[in-house]
C-alpha cells in the first residue's frame, strides 16, 4: 500500500514535468536553461476518443477524452513536449528512481514518459480489466505483454536511447511514448508549455524539443556558470 502511494507520488512528479532525477547533488556552480514551447499554424482537429468497446472506461470519463497527440494550452503552449540536452552533456550514470507508467481509464498516464537509459520503469494496470503493453521499439528489443487485472507491475528498463511509441492493441486508441535518453537533463512540458533544465555545468549545449506530431527542433545554448538562459521553441502545427 505504501509502495503504491510512493508510486503514485512519483507518477505525479513525472507527469507534472519535474522528471529530472532529484536525488543527485548537481555540481556547482550550475546553470539553468528555461523556456516555453509554443506552436504556429493550424492545429489538427481533436477528436473525442470512442471507448465504446470498454464500457467501464466510458463510465470513468463523464466528459469524453480527446485524442492526446496534439494537446495544447493557453497562449499556444504545447503539452507533452520532451525537452532535453541532445549534445554537450558529459553523461551520467542512470538514475535509480523508478519511472512509473500507469494504465487507468483506458489511457496512459502520463501520455509521454521520459527516462534515462537503464533507468527502472514500472508499468501498472489500475483498470478492472486486461491491457497489453506493446512498446514498438526498433533499436531496443520490442516486447508485447498483457497485464490482466491483478497481475503484478511489469518492471523493466531500456538499454538504448530511443523514442518508443507504446500502444495497447486491445484498446487501439491507447497510445503513448517512452522517451529513452542518455542525458540526465530532460523534462516533459505541462500544459503551460514551460520547461526548465537545471544543474547544468558550464559548457556549450544543444537543447532539443521533441513532439510526437509537430517534430523536433534544436538550439545551441552556452552556459557560462551559475546563470539562467532562455530557449524558446516554436513548433509548426498542420491540420492533417
Amino acid at each position, binding site marked *: 500500500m505504501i509502495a503504491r502511494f510512493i508510486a503514485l507520488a512519483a507518477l505525479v512528479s513525472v507527469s507534472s514535468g519535474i522528471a529530472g532525477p532529484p536525488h543527485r547533488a548537481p555540481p556547482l556552480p550550475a546553470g539553468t536553461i528555461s523556456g516555453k514551447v509554443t506552436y504556429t499554424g493550424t492545429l*489538427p*482537429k481533436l*477528436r*473525442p*476518443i*470512442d*471507448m*465504446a*468497446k470498454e464500457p467501464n472506461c466510458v463510465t470513468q470519463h463523464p466528459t469524453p477524452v480527446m*485524442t492526446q*497527440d496534439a494537446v495544447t494550452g493557453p497562449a499556444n503552449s504545447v503539452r507533452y513536449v520532451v525537452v532535453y540536452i541532445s549534445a554537450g552533456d558529459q553523461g551520467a550514470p542512470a538514475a535509480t528512481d523508478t519511472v512509473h507508467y500507469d494504465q487507468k481509464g483506458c489511457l496512459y498516464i502520463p501520455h509521454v514518459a521520459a527516462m534515462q537509459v537503464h533507468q527502472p520503469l514500472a508499468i501498472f494496470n489500475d483498470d478492472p*480489466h*486486461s491491457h*497489453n503493453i506493446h512498446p514498438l521499439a526498433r533499436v531496443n528489443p520490442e516486447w*508485447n505483454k*498483457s497485464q490482466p487485472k491483478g497481475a503484478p507491475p511489469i518492471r523493466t528498463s531500456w538499454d538504448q536511447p530511443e523514442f518508443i*511509441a507504446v*500502444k495497447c*492493441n*486491445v*484498446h*487501439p*486508441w491507447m*497510445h503513448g511514448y517512452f522517451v529513452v535518453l542518455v542525458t540526465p537533463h530532460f523534462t516533459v512540458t505541462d500544459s503551460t508549455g514551460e520547461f526548465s533544465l537545471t544543474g547544468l555545468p558550464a559548457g556549450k549545449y544543444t537543447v532539443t524539443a521533441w513532439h*510526437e*506530431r509537430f517534430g523536433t527542433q534544436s538550439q545551441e545554448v552556452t552556459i557560462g556558470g551559475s546563470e539562467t538562459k532562455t530557449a524558446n521553441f516554436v513548433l509548426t502545427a498542420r*491540420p*492533417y
Partner: protein
Amino acid sequence: MGRLFAVVVSVIALVSAAIFAFHVWWLPPDISTHGVRIDRQMNETMVVAGALFVLGQLALAVFVWRFSASETRAVKSFPGGPTPLVVLATVLVGIEILVLTFVGSKVWADVYQTPPAPGSLQVEVLGEQFAFYFRYAGADGKFGAMHPELMSDATENFFGLDPANDTTARDDIVVGSLVIPVNQPVELRMHAKDVNHSFYVPELRIQQDFVPGLVIPLHFTATTPGKYELVCTQLCGLGHYNMRAFVEVKPRADFDQWLKEKAAAL
C-alpha cells in the same frame, strides 16, 4: 455390469436430450428478418438429430442389457444380416440429408447469395487487432479511399483516410459502435486491417469472417431496437477475447438524430 452400462447410457442420453428439449440454454431471441428461418432450420435439425441421438444410445443400452454374458445360450445373428441396417441407415439418413439440404441451402442462399435490398444503409466495417470500427459515408454519400500507409491508431485514423487531399473523406463518420436504424436493410462492407477476424452477433443470427486483402459484403435487417454485442469469432491474437463492439439498433428518428450529431462534431 451390462445392466449398469445400459442404465448409465440411458440416463446420460435422456438427461442430455432433456436439457436441449427444455431449452435450458438456448439461442437468444432473434432480432433479424432472416433469423426466423435459421431458427426453424435449427429446430428441425434438433428434432431429427435429437431423435437419432436418443434412439442410437437407447438401442446400444437395450442390446447391452439384453445380451450380457450367459455362457449357456447359443449366439444368434442379427435377423437378415447387415442388409436391413444398411437400408435403414441409407434411407433414413438419406431422406434427412435431402430434406435438410433442400430447405437449408435455401435459407443459406437467402442470407449469403442474394444482393442487398436497394436503398440499404451502407456501412464500412474495419476489423483490427482488437477492435471494430465503423464508417458512415457522411453528407456527400461517398466513402473516402483507404490508404494503408496512413492508418494510425494514435491519431484515430483507423481507416487510413487522407482528408488533406481527399475531400470525400472529410465528412466520413468513424465510430466504435455499429448504430443502425430498425427495419432498414443494412449492407456492410468488411475490411480486415491486419489478420482474419469475424463478425458475430448472436441475436442477429449472422456471422462472417473478415479476410485481409478482400472486401466482404454482408447484409441483414434488424427488427428490434436495443443494444447487442458484436464479437470476434476468428482467432486474431492475444486480445481476441476482448475484440468486441456494440450494435445499437435505434428507431429511425433516433438514428437520424444520432447521425446528425456525429456529423456536427466533425
